[in-house]
């Protein structure tokens, strides 16, 4: 009797576990489709990512997503799906440039801009700092020319007006 109860309890637990796992599996498939689909462009020339293309009358995204779901259902790997789309549409199907070959340039350019720009700013700051530290010619002379004084006053007024 106890054995039967244990067996029933185990069966119930297994059923609950299966019930929990099965929808989770289905959800995983959908999420995976979204995740992989997010790496491709819709080829209807709308410049949108495949999973986001929803403009009315777009048959391209519908068929591409169908193809993607079928491939996932048949157990194809992400690499295989990528190869399939690249063969079908060419490299422009990638939503972002691949990180290899000439496309690597696209990824490195922003970093180059940032590094180059930062170096330039640091250079400019250090040069301007040098200007500020340079002693003013004729400093220490008691008489300051009127013109210089007026320029200094105008500058002070400008800088403090806020």
């Amino acid at each position: 009797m106890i054995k039967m109860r244990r067996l029933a309890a185990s069966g119930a637990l297994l059923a609950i576990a299966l019930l929990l796992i099965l929808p989770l599996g289905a959800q995983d498939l959908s999420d995976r489709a979204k995740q992989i689909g997010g790496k491709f462009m819709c080829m209807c020339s709308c410049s949108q990512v495949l999973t986001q293309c929803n403009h009315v009358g777009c048959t391209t995204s519908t068929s591409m997503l169908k193809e993607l779901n079928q491939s996932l259902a048949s157990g194809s790997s992400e690499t295989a799906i990528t190869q399939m789309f690249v063969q079908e549409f060419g490299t422009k199907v990638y939503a972002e440039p691949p990180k290899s070959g000439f496309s690597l340039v696209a990824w490195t350019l922003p970093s180059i801009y940032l590094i180059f720009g930062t170096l330039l700013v640091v250079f400019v700051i250090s040069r301007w700092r040098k200007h500020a530290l340079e002693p003013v010619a004729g400093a220490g002379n008691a008489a300051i020319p009127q013109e210089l004084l007026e320029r200094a006053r105008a500058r002070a007024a400008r800088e403090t007006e806020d």
Partner: protein
Amino acid sequence: MDVFGSFALVLALVCAVYAFVGGIGAIGTRHPLLVKSTRQAGIAACCLIFLATFSLEYLFFSDNFANAYVVSHSNRDLSTFYKIAALWSGQEGSLLFWSFLLAVYVFSVLITYRNKNGELMPYVGVVMAGVQIFFLTLNNFVASPFKALAVPGANGAMNLVARADGNGLTPLLQYPEMVIHPPNLYAGYTGFTIPFAFALGALLARYPGEKWIHLTRKWTMIAWMFQSMGILLGAHWAYAVLGWGGYWGWDPVENASLLPWLTGTAFLHSVMMQEKRGMMKVWNVWLVFCTFALCILGTLLTRSGVVSSVHAFAQSSIGTWFVSFLVLILVVCLGAYLKNRDYLKSENQLDAIVSRESSFLFNNLMLLVACVAVLSGTLFPVFSEWFTGDRISVGAPFFNKVNVPIGLLLLFLTGVGPLLAWRKTSTESLKRNFGMPLAIGIAGGVVAFALGVREFYSLVCFILCVFVASTIALEFYRGAKVIRTRSGASLLSSAVDLTMRNTRRYGGYIVHLGMVLVFIGLAGAAFNRDTQKEMQLGSTMQIGPYTLVLQSVDSRPERNYTAQRMIIEVMRDNKPIMMLYPEKRRFVTTVENGTMVAIYSTLKEDLYVVFAGQSPDTQLPVIHAYLNPLVKWIWLGGAVVVLGTLVALLPNRRAVLVLAGASEPTMATPTLQPRLTPSVITREGHD
């Protein structure tokens, strides 16, 4: 009326050419009559462009289907509202509309400064006329909207014809925002012509001092405000019409509008360095040149078909004209700079590394890096095709990865910059100004984390938003407290008083606050959810806390389209909260479909429902529902940005000193000096 419009455009071109050539003559001879006549020719050119534009609108309103442009973009059933928008829905009309907006600016400048800045204005007039000549050439000879409809006859000659009805307006454009988004964006693009004309004019004239900067600032802010509004309205249009659940797809045309906005923003910040410290003169001039050049580049991208986009106009050969104009602009700017670069000698000195000046330099760096990163990403498919023969797509994932960190750094600088003093910031000042906002920011981050925000960039964004908002709030509080102590008014009215005393500074803070709200909205995108389901009548769909119940599907014929409509009841906690009506529209004349998304928007999230069509297998209607958190904050932020810009455009109200109790000297006692009491009171006045 089309003959009238054509004639007005030809005359406008003649006047603009006179304003240009005569203007050069006026600069050389300084003859007052020539100066005056060229200015009046400029004004006449603007008035003629207004007439041409109104005559094209008249053709739309009178359903003149003998005009090719009207046939292509309108029909009898098109509502009056959209007949206005039909003007800029095609290549030819939008170029005329560009000329129209440019004419509004040119007209305003010529009238405002008709008796001022005599040395500078002839140069400015010549530059503006030069830009007008380019667009009027396109309007007259390349893309005229006044072409009559003609069909080839039996003998090969073209016969003029008139159609009974037109093809109608593209369904995507039949949306209220399409009536206001393009005018705003174009007003931004064209508006940058004015600072460009002043900068180039001042450089050519070797105009002394920083006056051109003061003259330019307001025009730049107006253009920047329109550009910001145009970008946000475009994003809202994409969100509410395209039905993909997002508002920014990094489409080449969207990117094209962002580029001049980024450099324009950089200019609005760096210009303060020139005004306050006489620094960065060369940089500022080139920022203005680049902003204008990017406006032309953006137009080139939109109209030439260089890059593919749903927003772009049909591919055409007009790109060659824009490329030529762009090259001409760069040559003229470079030539003017090389010739007069000694005039731009700056007083570049930096007293300390931790200062407002440094923060502006880094702010400009980040804005420029964002600009070139977006530009190179947008053009990379073209470069890739040139070098490898393969066209690579550069979509939203790339731009997000590149620009999100840059955007966050900019947000950080938005908080830091205003707290740093000009010249030098002491350690005590840093502690005093940053301690509290930093603590509040971290506390905000802890709260966000506790509420479930785990995505790294979103969490950082929330922390920075709280930090920046608290720095702004503290700036207002400190200033208002001082005024309250003196005047005894409430804190709120003291804050208003404070703002009105220095509109530029506090208007700028309001703009920053608007940007914080926009960033909060953008951070919400990391938590978007969506689900799609075939629905039967009475069936339900769950998304987040909402239950959608399909009540019915009906069809209603409208004047210009037939709408298939879903009637959906939205429930929350088993209580009905509202009805949503997403539509699918079938336009009769164009035989095209359109969507009308239904959105239930709250500050927390948007429930975004799309009628995604019918299932091909079951013929059941399909609902695609999205739950997009915090989207409303983006639109609110946009409104705050506009408000801040308007405040910054207002003149300052200054406290003026008046002597209290001053008595007039009387005739009876002429020898007596007037008695002045030593006390003074302050009275408000406008400068």
